[in-house]
């Protein structure tokens, strides 16, 4: 077989594969874009969810050509170059079969461009999304405007939130075996087993735990932050739709981990205001017995058996100690 002939054959194979690849990839991407993409989790209930859904879809649209490229190649090889198929030419060894500089360099260049693009894209999405709803630790570097002020104010008894004021709502999520409870510092620091949120509002979740590591996962809000004992883990989102959402623990936290879930609700700002003030008043007597609102709670010295909040005498709270030197500016 002459070299020219074999070169011709080579382009023939590659061209055929490329054609199949392009057709299938475009078809898969179009089908996905119009048929599946709008339904991809986590949905559109918050700005964060919408942004993360977009991120998800970009990855899917890039993944299909990669998957299809390899599968088309493998399928083509299986069909055309099987020893059982009649007329398969004897393979050629030698230097040409041992490597091809052009193929190797372009493979490395293309994969590098793809992954560097994805890393850059993910980073931009992470920063623009104020942490994309993920736990950012006690001192978030990427935060929405006004959240530092609201967070600092939350530690004082004068903190407040009113509808239409564009203020950030601070919600503390407390994980313990095996439930989540929520404190609202802007409403007197009452603690509720229900997570109710106002619509069109920037929320700052401050997630902590009283015992082991849990993970606060509000699926439809696209918020996930581990609840670590004696650590504050902040995550932001902005609600955009009314409706119910699911909260599940997504870090193994002991035998009843599987039943550590509840449901939350996004309601209108005025309905939220009504609920919060009513609950604050109804819970006032209980709230007095709770430790003062703080980012973390040190279990009582005798609390190892589960007796947190035994008599209200928790370890004295210091802002600097628990929040670090890098407190949000007031």
């Amino acid at each position, binding site marked *: 077989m002459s070299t020219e002939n074999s070169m011709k054959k080579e382009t023939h194979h590659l061209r055929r594969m490329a054609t199949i690849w392009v057709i299938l990839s475009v078809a898969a991407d179009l089908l996905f874009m119009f048929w599946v993409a709008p339904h991809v989790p986590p949905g559109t209930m918050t700005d964060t969810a919408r942004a993360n859904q977009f*991120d998800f879809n970009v990855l899917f649209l890039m993944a299909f050509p990669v998957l299809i490229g390899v599968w088309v190649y493998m399928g083509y090889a299986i069909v055309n*170059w099987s*020893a059982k198929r009649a007329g398969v030419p004897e393979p050629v*060894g030698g230097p040409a079969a041992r490597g091809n500089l052009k193929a*190797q360099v372009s493979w*490395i260049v293309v994969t590098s461009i793809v992954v560097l693009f994805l890393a850059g894209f993910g980073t931009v*999405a992470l920063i623009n999304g104020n942490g994309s709803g*993920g736990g950012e630790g006690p001192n978030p570097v990427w935060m929405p405007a006004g959240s530092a002020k609201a967070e600092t104010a939350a530690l004082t008894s004068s903190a407040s939130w009113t509808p239409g004021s564009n203020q950030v709502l601070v919600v503390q999520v407390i994980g313990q075996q095996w439930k989540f409870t929520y404190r609202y510092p802007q409403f007197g620091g009452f603690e509720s087993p229900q997570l109710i949120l106002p619509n069109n509002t920037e929320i700052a979740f401050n997630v902590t735990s009283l015992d082991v590591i849990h993970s606060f996962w509000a699926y439809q809000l696209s918020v996930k932050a581990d609840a670590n004992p004696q650590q504050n883990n902040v995550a932001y989102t902005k609600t955009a739709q009314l409706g119910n959402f699911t909260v599940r623990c997504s870090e193994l936290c002991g035998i009843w981990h599987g039943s550590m879930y509840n449901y939350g609700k996004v309601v209108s700002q005025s309905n939220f205001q009504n609920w919060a003030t009513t609950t604050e008043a109804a819970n006032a007597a209980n709230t007095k017995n709770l430790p003062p609102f703080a980012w973390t709670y*040190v279990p009582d010295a005798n609390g190892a058996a589960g007796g947190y909040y035994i008599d209200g005498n928790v370890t004295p709270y210091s802002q600097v100690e628990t929040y670090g030197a890098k407190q949000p500016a007031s």
Partner: protein
Amino acid sequence: MTISAERPTEVAASSVTPPVQSGRVGWTQRPGWMSQHLGTAIVLGIVGYLFGHWLGHEITGDYAYIQNSGQNSSANFFALLFGVVGWLLGIGALNYPVAKLFGREPNQEPTVEGWSKYFRYTLDHKVVGLQYVVGVLLFMFTGGLLAMAIRAELLNPTTHLFGPGTYIEIVSEHGTIMMMMATSIIVGPLGNYFVPLMIGSRKMAFPRIEAFSFWIFVAGYAVIFSALPYGGFPTGWTGYAPLQTQAGPGMISYLFGFAVIGMGMMAAGFNIAVTIINNRAPGMTWSRVPIFVWSILATAALLTLATPTLFAAGLFGILDKTAQTAFYVSEHGGSSYLWENLFWFFGHPEVYIMALPGFGIVAEILPVFTRKPLFAYKVAASGMIGVALLSFFVWQHHLFQSGINPDMRPLFMLTTELISIPTGFIFLVGMGTLYRAKIRFEIPMLFAMALFFNFLIGGVTGVFLSDVPVNVTVHGGFFVLSHFHYTIMGGLLFAFMAGLYYWLPKMTGRMMNKKLGLWHFWTMFIFFNLTFFPMFIIGLLGQPRRVFTYAKNLQGLNDFSSISAFLLGLSFLLFFANLMYSMYIKPVKAPANPWDSLGLEWQTASPIPEYNFERIPVVMTDPYHYSEVGAPPVADMGTGAPPVVSTTSGSSPA
């Protein structure tokens, strides 16, 4: 570079006499029940366990986990410690070092012939390799049974089969035993057996350490399951503190189990690394080293460098639970983040400890069944080294939502994306090798091709996980569960099967039955995908890992996955049946080189002589000169037999 084909004289002179075993013939040489073997190891292990338990109660009886229950973490720790020491004493692993310690001439290890050498502290790497095959299959079948139990519970969205305590115990044991198995499944059986044969060595660099790594690996199995009488441990295989600190004495089995397995991993790692670096035959230059050996070298480096972190982390945990230290207790100055950091600092290299040998096997057998040279050999080797290096810089992608170093997330996102470049080289190599080949679809080749299918899905979903905004949804759910089953089971386990079907004829002299093999392959491939692909969707729809209750609308998908999983379990029984049938019931004698391989391991006599090569071979070229007319033979075996040259024949082997 060319190496003279002339045989160095000193090699020729020393090649007839086997390497000298040091030591005198003593009581270890007694036949039968009088010497040391598995039986004495079990007896002394039990004696040690009981003694340690008694001792622990004597020392720390006041610290009972539950009053008057006999449940005491310290007692459990001492029991396991003395149990393992007794086990090692019983098998004879300590004879040599202890004798040396006291300046005495050590007894020679037993040189038993026949089947009983498989139950003893035998120094032949081929015996250790076969011992490992049985060992990892034991791990795998136990872990697989536990997986069946998990899927049985998940048939129903509420708890129906096990209580939540039992369920979490099963989940934790499944994860831990499978992870331990996966670290050794290729390095142990195939690495130990074939690395010396492939580099032209007569033995491992440290045969005693090699035997030690196997026997302590088996002890790890017993240690992990010693948690069962204590109700297991509730932490999954990740063992996060403070749940770890809060757990009962069963937790000690997990912590000490990882320390024990860790010792075996470190020992196996540096033994293999030293062997590959120092024991290569003349002419086996780095550019001729088989790609499987490169992968094992990269893995060995990871085993040696990453495992000490796990070992230390485990000991800290044991101290927290017994001596009341506070490494991981935040109330007393420790940090739960410390465990997460240490565990994943080991845990991510660990992932590549599992992936790399799989790539090695596939790249090794592709040329044999495509009758073509390996494409881009140097890219493949450098990719493996690149993966090994980068794997130390990605661990915090497991902790994106934990609040740990949140400002570093872009960096770990970048390193994680970057590692997919060298990982992707395996696809370049595979696709290049397949190009215009003449593919023989033998069973090993089918499993190798399946790796490309499965690992592609595993790899692409890994990129999803590395993207922080997407990670918010998929972290800690069934999506990530499915992802790592696609990489480890779909990659590593398929590669292990490819390697087993490929090399068992050389190891045992018997062919695996092809018809049963086909049934095994297709059922395993189909039901693996049917089991785990729905789990991506289950995860996307919001089901977290390790739960026994889930949303009612996910029952259909979960049931589908469960039923597929049971059928996947049957596929493993089929494999077991094939193994029994082909090896014992109706063995068919294997030809000396059934796949027409050029690999050095196939050129030595069959069955393999005790010292592998009658004469140390002089390697002339790399073993991938398929379809090359006039290529030099792979090695001069020095036996006077005509050297094996490449054939251009594409015809299927008989």
